[in-house]
């Protein structure tokens, strides 16, 4: 998923779930920030590197594919972008080595989604936003794994797109400078590398950006699927993702007492369903404009564009005593907790691909945090 869904659509979901305009902005900012919180950025902010939620292209280019680097890659991508659906999945005759990768295949409505949402309960808005990113990505990144793996993430040449006029074969190219062409059905993907652990075989790199587009409807043969065809209908899946986000957000703000998987709040989105479906189905590379207009219509407030630097000054300038009250510090705390939870769950299942880490249980106090942040910002301004 991209900024259009992680930022603007998350804002809409939060507002529909009953959060105020300002709260919704904090939630959607955090959801989008997951795609930008790299080690490079953390180094600049002098923040803990363990809080990284993504890797930049250059970071991955430099990344080794030895055991330690693979653990790091898997922790980041499996925890935040490719949440495994079933850590105990079985496959006949499969070796443990294969199963370790097979069990990391991402999908919605797994136990880990429930744990992710529950982990954010009673925590900061940043934790809620982060959880929404993870939840939403389980729908977009379904059938791919957040670890480099040829035998899981590779695709065959039989990759077809369904659209209004029929069906056509997707033409994949590897030139990173040429943009995806929706009209011609030409998309950039990563190069084929026969090395199992090549970084080119991470996530949906072999299918390019295509699975991230909300309009995409396609069929293909995944490497792990025993030659069976998979049909993926993104407009339908993204609608479910949106309805599930609204439900999860209602749970997180106390409107529901429990969070159950396979449950969606279609009732809340019913009045807007047609509009949402129209946005999702529109064949375009970026739907930010449409989602933004919808969000502003919902709340009657203006939604500022995402600005990666918005909270950086606050974090850098904050005094050590108050640093953990800043917007970004709360995001980092939530990120570390999420990473620890997912890594440990993978480890507990007998899978060593993400390593293990200390389990972090933290409780955020219901104090006058906003007043502290306001005071902190006034100090910074001085």
């Amino acid at each position: 998923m991209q900024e259009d869904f992680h930022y603007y659509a998350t804002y809409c979901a939060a507002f529909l779930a009953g959060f105020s305009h300002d709260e919704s902005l904090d939630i959607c900012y955090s959801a989008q920030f997951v795609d930008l919180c790299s080690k490079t950025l953390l180094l600049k902010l002098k923040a803990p590197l363990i809080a990284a939620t993504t890797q930049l292209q250059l970071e991955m280019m430099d990344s080794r594919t030895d055991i330690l680097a693979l653990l790091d890659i898997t922790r980041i991508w499996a925890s935040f972008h490719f949440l495994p659906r079933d850590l105990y999945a079985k496959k006949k005759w499969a070796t443990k080595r294969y199963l370790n990768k097979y069990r990391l295949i991402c999908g919605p409505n797994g136990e880990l989604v429930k744990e992710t949402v529950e982990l954010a309960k009673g925590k900061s808005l940043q934790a809620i936003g982060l959880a929404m990113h993870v939840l939403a990505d389980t729908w977009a990144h379904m059938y791919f794994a957040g670890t480099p793996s040829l035998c899981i993430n590779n695709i065959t040449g039989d990759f077809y797109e369904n659209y209004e006029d029929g069906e056509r074969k997707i033409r994949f190219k590897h030139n990173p400078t040429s943009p995806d062409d929706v009209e011609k059905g030409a998309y950039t993907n990563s190069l084929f590398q026969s090395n199992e652990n090549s970084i080119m075989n991470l996530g949906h790199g072999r299918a390019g950006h295509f699975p991230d587009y909300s309009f995409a409807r396609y069929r293909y043969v995944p490497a792990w699927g025993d030659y069976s065809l998979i049909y993926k209908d993104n407009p339908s899946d993204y609608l479910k993702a949106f309805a599930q986000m609204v439900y999860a957000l209602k749970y997180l703000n106390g409107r529901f007492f429990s969070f159950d998987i396979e449950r969606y709040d279609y009732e809340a989105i019913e009045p807007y369903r047609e509009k949402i479906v129209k946005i999702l189905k529109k064949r375009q590379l970026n739907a930010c404009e449409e989602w933004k207009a919808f969000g502003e219509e919902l709340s009657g407030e203006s939604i500022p564009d995402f600005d990666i630097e918005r909270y950086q000054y606050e974090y850098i300038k904050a005094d050590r005593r108050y640093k953990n009250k800043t917007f970004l510090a709360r995001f980092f705390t939530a990120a570390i907790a999420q990473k620890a939870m997912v890594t440990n769950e993978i480890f507990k299942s007998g899978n060593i691909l993400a390593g293990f880490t200390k389990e972090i249980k933290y409780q955020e106090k219901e104090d006058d945090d906003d007043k502290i942040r306001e005071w902190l910002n006034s100090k910074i301004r001085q």
Partner: protein
Amino acid sequence: MTNIQKINNVVLGIISIAVAIYMIIDPQDGYLLMLFILSFSLAFRGLKELFYFFTMGRHMVGGRFSLYKGVFLLDIGFFTGSLIDIPKTYVMIYLVIINAFAGLVEILRVMETRRYGSKSWKLKFSHGIINILLAVFCIVFIKHQRTVILVYALGLIYSALIRIVSAFRKTAFIFIQ
């Protein structure tokens, strides 16, 4: 290219240069060392590929390719090892053909890279061409064994240097988030 691949390339380059120097110093037996290294590395790669197939590749769509690749490499490795007892001329022809084949693959890869719009292809292309020219030269002068071994050794040094240089160059990377 990952750091591990870069280290591999540098190490292989240094070994190749060492072997080439040994071939120049001792043309009588130097080629046997080359043969041994080639045989061992091909067999090792074949076994590695077979291990991958039996533990993972057999569950993968198109994974049978790793079985074929493994069997082929292992077979070629054993075959290379068995060449020790045959006349030196044939062994040199075999080594030269392998070199020419590597050159051809390099040129094909360059053509593929250019099709995708890459601009950094000249070094690889010249490497491929020189590999093929050296092979042609060796075959033409196959009766002059000392000359052939010298030319082959120089070609080996050139390939090793290219390998080392490539390891330190920036590599294009495409990843889709």
